[in-house]
């Protein structure tokens, strides 16, 4: 694979918020596409193919890619959709460029919020016979996962509160306009209980966002010159089974599998991975910790101590979610692609107020589904793999 096509992220954009009374979803998708192309310094004519990710139930359309097609420039183009996860859209777009059949790809995902009840919508994902009668939505599944973790790791709740504090601090710097939730430990721990042990202050309210990235091949990038690029060094993605009863919710073997794939591709030592920063799934603070373990960045035995030492803070040894993560800004469904975009922007040196100086490598992790069923890992580098090797 030494001569394979290398893939880089050369542009990205996030569009939020949106007033549904003044701006349609299509207009928001057009805006985010335009901004991402502008960031990449190219036009839609330079785009060879598009991968979008949207969720039919949240969109209220039976084939949600349809509405996006015109807005993201899909007419007359090769456009596919990965409704299983926004992060899967990034994976497929990367594979398409890497195949050598496409020079460029546009990736777009979004999080509409016009559904009457996100919880009821999510419950439709349960099998109709055994689980749909249960009040099982994303948050309930995440709470079950948190319970399973608390049963295994003494003192975990305090660590979860500290992770929330850290991410909210990051979010206040990165996106102060999106991070209105409490930042003080006492308020986070003492919030209204939503699903034990998750309080309302431990999660962020669902928000609208659209996110877009532009990917290109090494040959195309070298032809353009002067592109700020985050090179995709490694990709991994894997799934758990759907039935929660078949899983040990305190473990994520699919994340370990995804990390192993990505690290092998990137030439990262899986026993001692080291990155300048991480952007990981954190619909709850418990998810961030189990993600860091799955990525080999912090075993559970060290969670409590690491959180208390602020190890995941901006100045810590493992800076994590400098964007504030989903704990600060939570566009449901596209949070995975948001994590990937944030890690790419940090690697490109385009992260704005929350840019960490000197980022050469970053790892992104996205998760979708009940209790993190799908897990995706992307390793970014400032230089292409060929240069690195």
């Amino acid at each position: 694979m030494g001569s394979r096509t290398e893939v880089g992220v050369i542009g990205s954009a996030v569009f939020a918020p949106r007033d549904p009374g003044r701006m349609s979803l299509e207009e928001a998708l057009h805006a985010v596409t335009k901004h991402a192309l502008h960031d990449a310094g190219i036009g839609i004519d330079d785009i060879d193919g598009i991968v979008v990710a949207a969720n039919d139930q949240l969109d209220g359309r039976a084939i949600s890619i349809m509405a996006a097609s015109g807005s993201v420039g899909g007419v007359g183009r090769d456009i596919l959709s990965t409704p299983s996860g926004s992060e899967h859209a990034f994976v497929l777009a990367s594979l398409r460029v890497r195949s050598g059949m496409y020079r460029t790809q546009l990736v777009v995902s979004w999080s509409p919020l016009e559904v009457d009840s996100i919880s009821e919508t999510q419950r439709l994902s349960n099998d109709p016979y055994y689980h749909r009668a249960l009040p099982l939505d994303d948050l309930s599944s995440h709470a079950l996962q948190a319970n399973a973790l608390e049963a295994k790791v003494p003192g975990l709740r305090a660590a979860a509160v500290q992770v929330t504090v850290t991410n909210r601090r990051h979010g206040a710097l990165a996106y102060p306009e999106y991070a209105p939730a409490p930042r003080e430990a006492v308020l986070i721990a003492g919030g209204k209980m939503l699903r034990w042990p998750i309080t309302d202050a431990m999660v962020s309210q669902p928000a609208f966002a659209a996110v877009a990235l532009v990917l290109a091949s090494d040959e195309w990038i070298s032809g353009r010159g002067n592109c700020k690029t985050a090179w995709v060094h490694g990709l991994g993605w894997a799934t758990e089974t759907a039935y929660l009863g078949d899983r040990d919710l305190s473990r994520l073997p699919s994340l370990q599998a995804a990390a192993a794939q990505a690290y092998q591709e990137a030439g990262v030592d899986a026993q001692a991975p080291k990155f300048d920063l991480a952007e990981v799934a954190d619909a709850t603070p418990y998810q961030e910790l189990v993600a860091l373990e799955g990525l080999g960045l912090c075993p559970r035995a060290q969670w409590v101590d690491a959180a208390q030492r602020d190890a995941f803070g901006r100045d810590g040894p493992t800076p994590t979610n400098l964007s504030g993560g989903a704990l600060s800004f939570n566009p449901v469904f596209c949070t995975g692609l948001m994590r990937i975009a944030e890690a790419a922007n940090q690697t490109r040196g385009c992260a704005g107020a929350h840019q960490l100086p000197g980022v050469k490598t970053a790892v992104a992790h996205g998760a979708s589904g009940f209790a993190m069923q799908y897990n995706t890992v992307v390793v970014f580098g400032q230089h292409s793999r060929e240069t690195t090797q």
Partner: protein
Amino acid sequence: MKAPRVGIIGIGQSQFKARRSDANYPELVREAVTLAMGDSGRSLDEIEAVVYSLAPDALLGIGNAERLGVDAVGARNKRFMRINTGGSTGISSLAAAHSHIAAGACELVLVAGADKVGECGDSQTILNKIWDPTYERSLPLGTITMLAMSAIRYMHKYGMTQEDMARIVVKNRAHAALNPNAHLRAPTSIDEVMHSRMIAWPIKLFDACPQSSGGCAMVLASEDYIRRNGLEAVWITGVGHSSESYYIGDRMGIGYSADHADAQALGEACSRAYKMAGVTDPVRQIDTAELYSPFSNTEFHAIEAAGLAPLGQSPRMLREEGCFQIGGRNPVNPSGGVLCANAIAVTAMVRVAEAALQVWGRAGAHQVKGAQRAIASGNGGDHQFFGAMVVEA
């Protein structure tokens, strides 16, 4: 850069029926997977990635229903993603799997799915929900009325008659009678089609596809893997996709972006697939075609988009020359096509599967003699997303 060749080494499909009360949704997927894995001679443990083919999950009544299929396809702790481009999902899923292998990320990829359209109640009620809730959903739009308007436009533009449409049904039913997996296998006549119940003028009951239940799975492998293991294979040599606008209104009236009579984006998808495969003269170089045509009228514009007839000429070429029947110049839908089985999530995959069986020489009673190169297509959304694939022996 030329992409590495990707081969098809295993194919499995259900016998499509109106109901499959004996199998729940994951079991139906598993049925196809078992057949495909058996056909490939490989084990599920060897599969490195699964691309899951599932169109609107509203047809199943389960949101994100691919999650429930993870174990059915043996994907636990493996690479897994779902594709949905509506009716073209099956061919889009194969294109995604092709990218997995062409990118060098995997050597062996399973593509699988199933649908229970026959058990969803009324698919048209669900499919009305594909349209924009503000502008077009309140109209009596379903996929039938949508393509009835295309038929009217095609009639006006090219002079197609209802008898021409019926001739497609008669041809495809005759083909399906030879295909044990087809849902509708009873031969019919022009007279019977013409006297079937009118649904949306000029589309009558027999002009329309059935609501089918069943699954399909295919195993794709890299050329290296196939050579290394001494496997039999046929090859995907061309892949192309393109799309039209979302709003039906954009294809009608003054200043339309694409004529609703034709399948402009399908033509672009086929051209891209042909270019990749080095096909320059489809009439001479394509031995048979499996073209996604859920209504009799749409087979005509699909034939033309695939370059097998000039625009507006395919009705005459079928009527006067029998060009598109088995034994004709370019047999189209020798399996019976979508008109004889439509389990939406996998229908476009079945098109590629049938094209592959043809060039493999394994199509049984509906084999087109000497077929070496075939094209398959898929349509999705409101006649919006189109995929095409060239398959060669």
